[in-house]
C-alpha cells in the first residue's frame, strides 16, 4: 500500500472542504476522482499527496512514495519559450538540485522515445498540437519515476485519437505497477481507465464539507446516466 486515509477532513483555514472516511491507495491501480466544480477534488488530491495537512484524521504514506504531476497542457504559460525537452524535463527538474537535469536528461529522452515523441524534443512546445503536448508532458512525468502519478483533467481539449492514446498509455503504465490518480469530469475517461472512483458529493448544508464515496466505475456510469447521486 502507498497511502491510507482514515477519517480525514481537508480544508482551508477553519473551513472544511472535503471529508473521507477511509481510502487506501495501492500500486498498480488507477483511482478516479470525480465531482462537480468546487466539490473539493483538488483539495482531496492535495491531501493525499501531502500538500495539505488534514484538519482531522490521519494520513499514512509509504516512505518510498514519490508523486509526480501531469499538468493540464492548456494551463501552461504559452509565452514562456521552451522546447519539447524543456517541457518534458519539468517534473524531473523538480527533484534535481538547482533544477539541472544532468544525466537525467537521458532518462527523459528515453521516456519520450517510449511514447513516440522523441522527435519533438527540439521543437518549440507551444507549436505542438494538444495531443503532442500532453504526450511530451506525460513522458516527463513518467521519467521522474513516480509511484503515484496525478493527472488533472488530462483529456480536456483532446481529440478522440489523442484521448484514446493517452488512456491506453495510462492503462499500460498501471499494468507495470504505477498508481495513477485521475481527476476528471468525464465519466467516459473513468469508465475506461479507473479501477475505483472517489466520488465527491457536495453537501446541501452551507459550510459543510463534501463527502467522498468510493464506487466502482460501472456503478458511477449507471448512476450518472440515471441522473441520480
Amino acid at each position: 500500500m502507498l497511502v491510507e486515509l482514515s477519517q480525514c477532513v481537508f480544508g482551508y483555514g477553519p473551513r472544511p472542504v472535503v471529508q473521507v472516511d477511509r481510502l487506501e491507495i495501492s500500486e498498480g491501480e488507477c483511482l478516479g476522482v470525480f465531482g462537480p466544480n468546487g466539490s473539493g477534488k483538488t483539495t482531496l488530491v492535495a491531501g493525499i499527496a501531502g500538500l495539505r495537512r488534514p484538519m482531522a484524521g490521519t494520513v499514512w504514506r509509504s516512505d518510498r512514495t514519490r508523486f509526480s504531476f501531469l499538468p493540464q497542457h492548456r494551463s501552461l504559460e504559452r509565452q514562456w519559450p521552451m522546447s519539447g525537452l524543456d517541457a518534458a524535463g519539468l517534473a524531473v527538474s523538480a527533484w534535481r538540485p538547482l533544477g539541472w537535469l544532468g544525466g537525467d536528461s537521458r532518462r527523459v529522452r528515453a521516456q519520450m522515445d517510449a511514447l513516440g515523441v522523441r522527435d519533438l524534443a527540439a521543437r518549440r512546445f507551444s507549436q505542438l498540437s494538444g495531443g503532442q503536448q500532453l504526450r511530451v508532458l506525460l513522458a516527463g512525468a513518467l521519467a521522474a519515476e513516480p509511484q503515484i502519478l496525478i493527472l488533472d483533467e488530462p483529456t480536456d481539449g483532446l481529440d478522440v485519437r489523442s484521448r484514446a492514446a493517452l488512456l491506453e498509455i495510462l492503462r499500460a503504465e498501471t499494468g507495470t505497477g504505477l498508481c495513477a490518480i485521475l481527476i476528471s469530469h468525464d465519466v467516459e475517461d473513468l469508465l475506461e481507465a479507473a479501477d475505483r472512483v472517489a466520488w465527491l458529493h457536495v453537501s446541501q448544508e452551507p459550510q459543510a464539507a463534501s463527502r467522498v464515496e468510493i464506487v466502482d466505475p460501472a456503478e458511477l456510469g449507471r448512476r450518472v446516466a440515471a441522473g441520480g447521486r
Partner: protein
Amino acid sequence: MDGLLEHMYSRFWIPLQVVWPALVAAVALAVAGGIAGVFVVLRREALMVLAMPQIVMLGAAIGLRFDMPALPPALATAAAALGLIGWFRHRDRGDLILPALYVGGLSLAILMVANAGAHLTEVQNLFCGVDVAVRTDEAIFGSAILLIAGGICGILWRRWLLFAQASIAAQLAGLHPVRWNALFLVLLGIILVVATNTVGTVMVWTLVFLPPATVLPRARSLPVAMAAAAMVGIACVVLGFALSVTMGWPFSHSVAGAGFCLFLAWHVLGHALGRRTA
C-alpha cells in the same frame, strides 16, 4: 587610413578613457539585466522594474540628505519595499503596492532633498540618467555584484520555468513556491538597487526591459533568450556610446534610444518577414 585611425582615436578613445567605468557598469548591467529581464517580462514583473528604482532613489536621497554613502540607505529602502511587496502579495493585493511604491518613491525622494540645492540636482540626475558620473571603484564593485546576481538568476532558469508551468510538481518534490519567489525578487532587487545606484534609472529601465522584450517573441528556449537578451543589451550600450560621443547626447538616453529603435525594428521586421513567409 592613418587619418581615419587618428579620427577614430580622437573621437572614441579619448572619451572612452573618461567614461570607461560607466561603460563597464553598463555592459555588466546589460548582461545581468538581460538575463533577469527575461524572467521579469515572462513573470509580468515589469512594474517592479519601474517602481524599484524610485525606491532606490528615495534611499539615495536619504543618504545625500544626511551626508551618508548612498548605497546603505538605498539597500535599506529596497529591502523594506521588498518586504512590503511580499506582504501585499501574500494578501493577494500585489497589484496595489507597486504603483503606490512608484509614486511614493518618486515624490518622497524629491521631498527629502527639496531644499538642498546641489543634492536636488544629484537626485534629479540619477532619475534622468544625465551626467551620471561612475567612479572606478563603483564600476568594479557594482559590475561584480550585477554579474553574480545575474549569473545566479540564469543558473536557476529551470526553477523559474518549473514554478511558472507546474508549481504543483515543484511542491510535490518539497520545493516551496514562496521561498523561490522571494529568492527571485531578492536577486532582482539586488540588480535594480546596485544598477540604479551606479548608472541611474534610465539605463536600468532600458537594459532590464527592452532587450528581453526584443528577443522573447522569437526565442525557442530560455537559455537562448537569456543569451540573446544579453547580446542585444551589449549592442545597445555600444551603439548608445557611439551615438553619445558622435552626437554629444547623454549616454543613458542614447542607450535607451538605441534600445527602443532595436526593439521597434526587430518587431516590425519580424512581423513583415513572418507575413512574407506565411
